[in-house]
């Protein structure tokens, strides 16, 4: 008697869709990855006034005062200036005297936003020596 040979099913993992799965995962990771690149306005603070040896005396003509009040108004050398005119004015001052130090003061009741906006303008105007006063 002859037995019929049982036909074995070929066992295999289908690999043709493997790349689809991998690419899907890849695209998922590519789109969900959020690169945390931080950006901001850089500044170097003046050293604390208690360190007497580091105290720097400046001539009055080398200081430009920029004040921000609690309403967000800006004063340049005690004169109120609109924010859009500040850049050109500061640029002229800095070009005339490269040693000019900008003494930047903000009212304690003022919003942080106003201070950042003015600092942004000062940096855009090319002012490199900005002294952020803490009062």
């Amino acid at each position: 008697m002859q037995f019929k040979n049982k036909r074995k099913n070929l066992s295999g993992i289908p690999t043709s869709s493997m790349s689809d799965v991998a690419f899907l995962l890849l695209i998922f990771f590519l789109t969900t990855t959020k690169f945390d690149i931080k950006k901001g306005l850089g500044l170097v603070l003046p050293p604390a006034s208690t360190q007497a040896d580091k105290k720097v005396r400046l001539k009055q003509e080398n200081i430009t005062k920029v004040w921000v009040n609690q309403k967000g108004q800006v004063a340049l050398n005690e004169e109120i200036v609109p924010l859009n005119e500040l850049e050109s004015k500061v640029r002229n001052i800095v070009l005339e005297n490269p040693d000019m130090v900008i003494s930047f003061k903000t009212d304690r009741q003022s919003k942080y936003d106003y201070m950042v906006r003015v600092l942004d303008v000062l940096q855009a105007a090319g002012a490199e020596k900005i002294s952020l006063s803490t009062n």
Partner: protein
Amino acid sequence: MAKIKKKERPETLIPTASMSDIAFLLLIFFMVSTVFVKERGLNVTLPRAAEIEKIPRKNAATVYVDRYGTISIDDMVVEIPQVSIIMQRKLAENFNLLTAFRTDKETNFGIMSDILKQLQEANALRVSFEAKLKR
């Protein structure tokens, strides 16, 4: 008439067997190179500015200040007088420390002024005010 022999074209095939290898390689690369943000921080709305520059991740110590004046360093809520001590310790670990402020734009500048004074006392003079790019 002679029969024109049909030219036998070689079958064109793109080898797809290694496709999944490539995809998985890329996938693993992205998974490994993704850096997750360690700090939870506070919920802040950053101000906008145009003159922003990149903050180097290595040297940056982030200080969160939210609109109610809560200060958070390394996910620890701290009071103003503690800031100086913490920053001194951080400065001892990394001489090129840069303090990056993630401050809400509605925050009173008075709090920022106090923190900046603390930084001056700690001699951590390099600061950066994080902002979003103004469009």
